[in-house]
């Protein structure tokens, strides 16, 4: 981020904003563990199946218990993940964070509710689109699936450690983010 895009309404600002946005999308994608190390061409292919959605502050992205269809990537803004009875907060996600990725594997019910805290721009990657991509570009599909499995494996490891600690001490002595 070398230049700030705070040139108000200038002609040049408008011309370059488009390109800047594109770069921004790709840098955000490249930073995600799911798309780590993919080529520019592959990232463009992924970008093509992403849906970009704008949310107002306080809008529900999805409800706990709804069938999950895919994952969301925060491009801008803050999203809160809350557990439904009692609305206690599990996590607060900002730019570059992602959530709901388990739904890429199977249409499991959402384990928590996601609500926007501020106005947000979210990228959505949906299972049907991912399956379609796997059909059309199997090599790229395998790469994404491998990274997805790795991400989930890491989380399973963390959960296992937490569980072991819990079994030994009677309480988890760390602060996992609970998801």
């Amino acid at each position, binding site marked *: 981020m070398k230049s700030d895009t705070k040139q108000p309404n200038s002609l040049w600002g408008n011309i370059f904003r488009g390109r800047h946005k594109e770069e921004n999308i790709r840098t955000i994608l490249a930073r995600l563990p799911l798309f780590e190390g993919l080529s520019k061409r592959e990232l463009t292919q992924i970008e093509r199946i992403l*849906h970009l959605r704008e949310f107002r502050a306080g809008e*529900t*992205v*999805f*409800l706990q218990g*709804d069938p999950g269809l895919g994952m969301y990537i925060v491009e801008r803004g803050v999203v809160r993940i809350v557990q439904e009875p009692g609305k206690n907060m599990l996590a607060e996600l900002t730019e570059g964070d992602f959530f709901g990725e388990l739904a890429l594997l199977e249409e499991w019910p959402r384990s928590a509710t996601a609500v926007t805290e501020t106005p947000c721009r979210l990228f959505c990657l949906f299972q049907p689109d991912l399956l379609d991509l796997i*059909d059309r570009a199997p090599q790229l599909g395998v790469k994404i699936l491998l990274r997805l499995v790795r991400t989930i494996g890491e989380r399973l490891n963390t959960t296992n450690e937490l569980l072991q600690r819990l079994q030994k001490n009677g309480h988890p002595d760390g602060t996992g983010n609970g998801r």
Partner: protein
Amino acid sequence: MDIRTGPAMEDSTGRAFRFVVGLIVLAALAVFLSSIRELVRLVVIAILLSYIIDPIAVMLESRGLSRTKATVIIFSSIMLAVILIILLVLPAVVRELSSIQEAVRSGQVNALLARLELLIGEKTAFLGASNLQLAGRLNDALMIMKNWMIEHALDMVTLITGLIIMPVFIFFFLKDGREIIKQIVGYIPNRYFEFSLSLIHKMDMQLGNYLRGQFLDALIFGVLSIVALWVLGVRFFLLIGIIAGMANLIPFLGPVAGATIAVLISVLDTGTFASTGSIIMAFALIKLLDDAVIQPVVVARSVAMHPLAVLLAIIIGGHFFGVLGMILSVPVAGFMKVVFRESLLNYRRFRLSAF
């Protein structure tokens, strides 16, 4: 109108107002669409066809081709096939048609009909039918057909523009279909977004299987009919087979139409009922094969419709869009069934009201 009667009242009048406006917009849309009927028909056919072809494009893409290249390859091979069919099959069909005309003109048919009348009179004397006047009736029917053709000669203009515009539509639907859907999805409010995506996906799966199945089934049925009629030595076997295959989109109509026309032609042709039994047997066998082997493998059961619903759809389709409408009405009705059912199911699964 007094709006300041409280927020709840305001909300409900607002909702009713929006509902009425929505209805008016829908009605206007329906009127508009029915006034550009021809175009709607073209677009619907183009969408259905590009839908049927899509898996081939996906297969080519998975071999590393870009979508555009895949589309171009498929498109040029289809064009080539169409040209080949026009060059090879069309002359045969035209020859068959003109030899029917010839037979009618030369009085051969009248002689045959007289013989047939005698034959029927003899065989079914117990029914008491003496003067059938088959020749007169056939001539009447032919006159009506001829008049109809003259009346609809103007349709040729739309047919030709269709033949030019249609490939363009199919090309772009095939190439950019996903992009178009994504653009449309972009306009859906966040609240209905996941619901709609899930709906589109479910419809896509079921409808794709259904349409491809129907298409394949009609194709196989047609080919089998052509082969059977050719073996039995029925004249115009190509034409009858094509009609039977297309009619088979409508349950039961394929074999019935095929057998009826084939029997008529063979009786007129030979003047005897010699091959009637074998023609009926052949179509019964093909129908059996279709029901027992082809349909279960090829056609998705999930969209299977009750014959009565199919019949209704065909009548409605024929009323609004003519013969082509009758053929298209079956897949379109299947589409509507899937849309309706999946909307309901999905509405229950997503607790939209809880937002």
